[in-house]
C-alpha cells in the first residue's frame, strides 16, 4: 500500500473539482498515474472533490476501464469481438492461459502479465487482434502468439 501514497491526488482533485461531471475524467487521471485506482487514493480524491465514496464505488465498478487492483506490468488483451472470435481468438486465450498459468482476468503471481478478454476494439479487419500494452498485434496465429507476446514485453 505504501507504493500508492496518494501524493498526486490533491493536484488531480484541484484540476477537476470545479468542472461539472468530471469524476470519470479525474479517475482516468488517477488510473493513468497508478495503473489502477487504489482504494486509499480514491478515498482521498472523493474527500477533496466532495464526492461520496458510494458514488466512486458505483462509477469504478460500472466501467470496465477502471481497475481496482494493480494489474501486471504487461497487459495482454485478446479481442473477443465477433470478427476476432470467428478467426480464432478463443484458441489464442487458451494458448496464453496455458503458457502463463493463469485464466483470463488474472495476473501472474510475479505481476509480469495480466491477461484479459476485451470486447471488439474496432480493428475487425485485422482479426484476430491482440494488444500488448499499447501495441497492436494483427492477424495473430496461435502458433506464434506466445512468442509475439514475449517479444513485445521484452521490447517495452
Amino acid at each position, binding site marked *: 500500500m505504501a507504493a500508492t501514497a496518494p501524493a498526486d491526488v490533491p493536484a488531480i482533485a484541484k484540476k477537476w473539482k470545479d468542472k461539472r461531471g468530471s469524476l470519470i475524467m479525474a479517475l482516468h487521471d488517477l488510473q493513468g498515474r497508478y495503473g489502477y485506482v487504489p482504494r486509499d487514493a480514491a478515498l482521498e480524491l472523493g474527500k477533496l472533490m466532495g464526492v461520496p465514496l458510494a458514488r466512486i464505488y458505483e462509477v469504478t465498478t460500472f466501467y470496465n476501464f477502471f481497475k481496482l487492483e494493480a494489474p501486471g506490468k504487461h497487459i495482454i488483451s485478446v479481442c473477443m469481438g*465477433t470478427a476476432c472470435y470467428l478467426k480464432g481468438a478463443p484458441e489464442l486465450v487458451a494458448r496464453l492461459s496455458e503458457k502463463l498459468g493463469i485464466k483470463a482476468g488474472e495476473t501472474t503471481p510475479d505481476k509480469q502479465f495480466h491477461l484479459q478478454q476485451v470486447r471488439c476494439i474496432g*480493428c475487425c479487419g485485422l482479426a484476430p487482434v491482440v494488444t500488448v500494452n499499447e501495441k497492436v498485434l494483427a492477424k495473430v496465429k496461435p502458433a506464434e502468439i506466445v512468442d509475439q507476446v514475449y517479444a513485445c514485453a521484452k521490447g517495452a
Partner: protein
Amino acid sequence: MTLYGFSQPTHWNGQELPRIISRLFDVPDGHRLEVARRHGAYATIGPALFDRAPYEIIHEVAESGLRGRGGAGFPTGVKWGFVPRAPGKPVYLVINADEGEPGTFKDRLCLTRDPHLLIEGMICTGYALGVRTAYIYVRGEMLPQICILNQALREAYDAGLLGERIAGSRYSLDIFVHRGAGAYICGEETGLINSLEGFKGQPRLKPPFPAVSGAFGAPTVVNNVETIMAVPYIVQHGAKAYRRWGTEKSPGSKLFSVSGDIARPGVYEVPLGMPFMEFFALAGGLVGELLGCIPGGSSAPVLTAEETRRATMDYESLSSLKSMLGSGAVTPFNTTRDPVLILQTLTRFYAHESCGQCTPCREGTGYVDRVLDALIDGHGGDGDVDLLKSLADQYEPMTTICAFGPGAAWPVQSFVSKFRPYFEAYIAKNPQRQRTRDLAGVRPGAFW
C-alpha cells in the same frame, strides 16, 4: 496508430463514388489544419453559414433527408426541430464518438483522418441550434484519436475557428472532449448523458427526450460523428446536391465498415441503396461461399445468404427484411463458419454489457447466454432452441428503458429462426436430449 488504409476507387461500375465524409481520408496529414484547409476545410465558416439565419440551416438539413448514422437512423433535421426555440437554458450539442457496436470502426477512422470536418460540422450545427458549449464523448479506448482530436481543437482555437466570435462573426462556441471508460451502454444517448455528467452510464427513460431535457437538465442534441460530418457539405452545396446520392428515403452516402469473410475489410463510403453484393465486389469480393450476413452491427437481425443477395444498403430495404442498417457494420460469413458460435459471441457480449437496470434485460441476457453455452458444450436438451427464442422475446421493444434490450434480443431471435438446424445439431450430440447442466449455478467462461 494507423490501422487501416482507406483505399477506394473514385469510380465503380462507371459511377462516381461519393466522397462527402471521406474526402480527406487518403490525404497525407489531412488531420492537420493547414493541409485540411488547402483541401477546402472550413469553407462554410464565413458568410455561407453566418449570413443565413439558424432556422434556414435546420431547414436545409431537414430537406437533405440526412438520417442519424449512429444506429437509429432518425432524421437529423427533425431531431434538431425538437429543441425549444427559447429554452431559457443553454442548449448543448454532444457528439457521440463512443463507437462500440461490434464490427463498427468508421467513427474511429473519421477522428483519425479528418477531425477538422467534425469540428466544422459542429460549428455549423452549433450555430443552427444556438449552442455555446459542445462536447465530444469519445470511447475510452480510443486514446490515439483523443490525442488527434485535442491537437485539431488546439489548431482550430489558434486559428480563431473556435472560442469567442468565430471567424469575426457574432457566434461563439467552445468544444470539450470527454473520455468514456469502457461501457457499451454509454453509446446510448441518455446513458451517454449520464456518463457525461460523471455518473454510471445507465440510460434514462424517454420522454423527456434529450432535445428537451438532456445534459444538466438542459436541451441537448446528441448526434453521431458521421452524421455531423455530413453537415458542412449540405450547408455548402445544399440539400439538393446531397440528394444526388442515395434513394428517396435514404438520401446521401454512408460509411460502411466491413469485416468477416471479405477480401478487403475496411471502411468504404458508398451511396445508400447500393446492393450488398455489389458492395462486396467493391471490397475485393467475398471469401468462400456466403452463408449469411449481419448487415448493420451486432444488434441487426442476421440475413440469410438469399436475403443478402436481394438486399440493398438503405433503411427501407433492410427494414422490409425485418433487419436494419444500424451503424453500417457489415459482417458476411461463409459456410465454414458456425452460426451458433457467432451467436455465442453476441450473447456473451450482451450479457456482459447489460447495464443491469431493467430486469428482463439483466436476467434475460445472462440466461440466454447460459442456455446457449450449455447447448454448445453438449448439455442442451429438446426444447432449448424454443427456450432461447422465448427468453429473448422477454426483452423485446417496450420491455426495457432503452433499445439495448431489443438490440440484444434480435440476434438471438434471428439466428435461432434462420439457422435452426445448426442449433439442433448440438442438441443431437447430447444422448440424453435433456439439459444436463444446472444453469443457475454455472456461468461458464464468464466474459470478464
